[in-house]
């Protein structure tokens, strides 16, 4: 599966209208110098073309304003991943202005041009390169204007901190603000001036602290639920007890008797509204509803057999050599099955939206990773033309892939249309768990083999329902095949992209299998990997991780509790090493994690380090505890009491090694999470000799594996 294909899987229901007219934008921009650009990466452009609904115009622009300030307008959103800081870094460098004179306007569909959404670790890879080219174009325009103004040729000019001066007479100078004043210059990127060479960059590559931190530590930062509108009502919506339940009758009379409560029924939507959210909540508790519920035998225990039975479509991702030949070459053959359960996104901010209709225009403030997608959905739900719909994504309180869908925005808009009042829909934690698009439960089956000398001779890999991202192995194996299986109605509820989709499942299975073979070969797991690798990038990060970790060779289980795993995601390569302690009850304490990451040129080393720490910390959750329990369409986990995520006491010492590279920048938000299942599984084996084949590796499962010996 190609890098971007999972996006298609995830976004098949996009019905993008044409973007707003260019003139509409120009009205709101004001004066100055404006450069429009389209995302130049062919893979993204190709993905969009295949969908056939691409904005043919532009999808970002930047302005050098009459005050000399630089502003980037982008449909990307900030959900903690830090692009609010790294995008301005790139612009500051390209335009030679101080970082604090760069502004960024994000996620507002009236102010920002069309954008597919913020996911897939794509902002830095696909959005920043053309943005740098646009900045180079703006700089070229400014240089031309300055040459005219200062009456010297362009090559006699230098720029520093937004001031252009004559190299021969430094008193002969002019500021960006003076040049932009009273101008209205539009440029459209056709021939792209080359941006600066990476070696010339001064702001990029330097650690920069978050620019949204001050607002966030003072409580000033606005998330969707913090928007307050005059006359606004809070809605609580009647929800079914299970995804497959059908409403047969509803009695809202008791709720209607409550003072100030308004009840709305519109087809399947039953909502109670009040000017106070807690009163709306109390009113909902008084609504009585009956449902028809089918019997279902699918639950969190039987799901894996169900998946294997349901799979009806297969796709060969990669193959080489001849599997029968590989089997003949193998002195030892290993057949293993790996499982992982459904996992929730569980951001601390629940899905929230506020909708207001004024005249024929609707504005929706929503916690969403894809404001332009919501725009089209709201337009369709209300029967409004898309140009009358404005979506604003304020700060998003964590997304991880779970806020690419925005059901709550549509619900708020429908209720606003029915009532004529501004409406807030904020999900409870139970609704958050119920309507989450979980990381899918999945099965991986691997048959592999090694020769007497410890060379991998066979690799036959099949993944069911996780998806293909990260499934292709990168070891030097002569006879191999990678298949992805799926199809049919497999899941009793919604599933979707969860931070590094599919790759957590695939990397756990692959790296566990590699360790099983290393142990059989009687080799240190790092040496076994190096012996079976030709890929220089992986070799380099494995060595870098081993250096920092202080890895010394030993055959597992060595009793030390050391583990290793490596992989690739979003163009970035990662290698992890971990040290764990396991007690007799199967409780694991991860003491230390080293992550070496090769992500090409690092735009903001501080931001990249934060993302690695985030991945390692969040990843411990799916490795050790996170698992959705369910019975048919009924979700049995509804809050953090039974659905455990990583806590303070679990947090290991985390060390990040960023490899020096001047290759083009790659993704940083997701890669370092992919190894967490594998590295912990391998460390548990090294500590105890117990091999875990199922995520999460709960104390009960570890204890059972230890007893098996």
């Amino acid at each position, binding site marked *: 599966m190609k890098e971007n294909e999972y996006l298609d899987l995830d976004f098949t229901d996009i019905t993008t209208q044409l973007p707003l007219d260019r003139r509409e934008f120009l009205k709101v921009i004001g004066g100055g110098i404006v450069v429009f650009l389209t995302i130049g990466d062919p893979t993204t452009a190709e993905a969009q073309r295949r969908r056939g609904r691409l904005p043919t115009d532009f999808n970002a622009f930047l302005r050098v304003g009459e005050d000399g300030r630089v502003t980037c307008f982008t449909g990307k959103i900030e959900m903690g991943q830090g692009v609010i800081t790294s995008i301005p870094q790139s612009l500051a460098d390209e335009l030679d202005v101080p970082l604090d004179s760069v502004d960024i306007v994000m996620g507002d569909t009236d102010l920002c041009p069309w954008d597919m959404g913020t996911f897939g670790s794509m902002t830095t890879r696909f959005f920043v390169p053309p943005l740098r080219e646009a900045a180079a174009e703006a700089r070229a325009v400014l240089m031309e204007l300055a040459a005219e103004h200062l009456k010297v040729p362009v090559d006699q000019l230098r720029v520093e901190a937004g001031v252009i001066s004559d190299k021969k007479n430094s008193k002969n100078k002019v500021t960006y603000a003076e040049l932009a004043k009273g101008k209205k210059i539009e440029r459209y990127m056709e021939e792209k001036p080359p941006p600066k060479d990476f070696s010339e960059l001064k702001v990029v590559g330097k650690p920069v602290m978050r620019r949204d*931190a001050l607002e*966030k530590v003072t409580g000033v930062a606005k998330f969707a639920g913090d928007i307050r509108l005059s006359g606004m009502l809070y809605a609580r919506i009647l929800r079914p007890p299970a995804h497959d339940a059908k409403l047969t009758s509803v009695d809202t009379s008791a709720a209607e008797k409550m003072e100030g409560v308004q009840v709305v029924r519109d087809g399947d939507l039953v909502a109670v509204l009040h000017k106070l959210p807690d009163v709306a909540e109390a009113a909902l508790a008084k609504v009585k509803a009956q449902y028809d519920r089918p019997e279902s035998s699918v639950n969190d225990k039987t799901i894996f057999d169900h998946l294997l039975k349901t799979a009806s479509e297969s796709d060969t991702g990669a193959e080489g050599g001849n599997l029968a030949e590989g089997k003949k070459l193998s002195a030892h053959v290993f057949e293993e099955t790996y499982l992982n359960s459904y996992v929730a996104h569980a951001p*601390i901010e629940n899905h929230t939206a506020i909708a207001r209709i004024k005249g024929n225009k609707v504005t929706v403030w929503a916690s969403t990773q894809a404001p332009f997608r919501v725009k089209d959905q709201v337009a369709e739900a209300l029967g409004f033309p898309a140009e009358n719909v404005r979506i604003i994504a304020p700060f998003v309180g964590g997304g991880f892939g779970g806020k690419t869908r925005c059901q709550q925005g549509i619900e708020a808009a429908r209720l606003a249309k029915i009532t004529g009042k501004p409406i807030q829909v904020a999900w409870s934690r139970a609704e958050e768990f119920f309507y989450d698009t979980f990381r899918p439960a999945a099965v991986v089956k691997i048959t592999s083999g090694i020769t007497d000398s410890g060379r991998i001779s066979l690799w036959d890999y099949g993944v069911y329902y996780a998806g293909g991202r990260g499934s292709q192995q990168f070891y030097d194996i002569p006879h191999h095949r990678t298949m992805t299986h799926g199809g049919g109605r497999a899941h009793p509820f919604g599933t979707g992209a969860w931070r590094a989709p599919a790759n957590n499942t695939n990397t756990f299975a692959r790296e566990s299998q590699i360790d099983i073979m290393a142990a059989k070969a009687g080799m240190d797991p790092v040496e076994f990997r190096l012996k079976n690798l030709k890929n220089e990038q992986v070799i380099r990060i494995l060595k870098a991780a081993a250096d920092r970790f202080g890895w010394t060779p030993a055959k597992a289980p060595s009793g030390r509790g050391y583990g290793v795993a490596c992989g690739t995601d979003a163009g970035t390569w990662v290698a992890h090493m971990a040290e764990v302690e396991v007690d007799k009850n199967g409780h694991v304490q991860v003491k230390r994690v080293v992550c070496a990451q090769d992500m090409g040129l690092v735009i903001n080393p501080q931001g990249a380090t*934060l993302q690695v720490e985030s991945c390692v910390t969040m990843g411990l959750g799916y490795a050790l505890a996170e698992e959705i329990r369910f019975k048919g369409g009924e979700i049995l986990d509804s809050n953090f009491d039974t659905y455990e995520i990583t806590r303070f006491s679990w947090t290991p010492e985390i060390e990040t090694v960023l490899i020096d590279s001047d290759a083009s920048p790659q993704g940083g938000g997701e890669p370092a999470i992919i190894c967490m299942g594998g590295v912990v599984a391998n460390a548990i084996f090294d500590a105890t000799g117990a091999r875990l084949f199922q995520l999460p590796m709960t104390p009960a499962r570890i204890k059972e594996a230890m007893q098996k010996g």
Partner: protein
Amino acid sequence: MMETLSFKLNGKPMEMALDGERSLLWVLRTDLGLTGTKFGCGEGICGACTVIVDKEPVRSCQFSVKDVNGKEVITIEGLSRNGDLHPLQKAFVSHDALQCGFCTPGMILNAYSLLLKNPEPTREEIVESMEDNLCRCGSYGRIIEAIQTAAQEIKLLGKA
């Protein structure tokens, strides 16, 4: 039942007539417009709604507003004084101890109460008292460091 409550909110005296059984969280967020206090889980598990009542951290989603009568409430909006950030706020910024920032107000206020009681906590003591505040972005390690830094600064300043 409607009742009149008097309490101090972020240093200012307040008087409100309202149903005392309502939760402090929604009174803060809706009636008083103080949206820095966040709703996370609604059951007192995640800590996003933490505020300070008479120096103790409380889960405002589980706390009846009548119980603030005669007491002093501090929310994230009241932590900085005269425009100066509290040392904890400064340390959260300088350590990059946040990402999405949604759990941050609760984290800072819980830490504030810890430092009032224990001005020089060990790492273990910090972990123990912060354990029930959840962060999905994975900033725990940096939050621990920020609390240690703030504790040092408060010690140097000689006041909390």
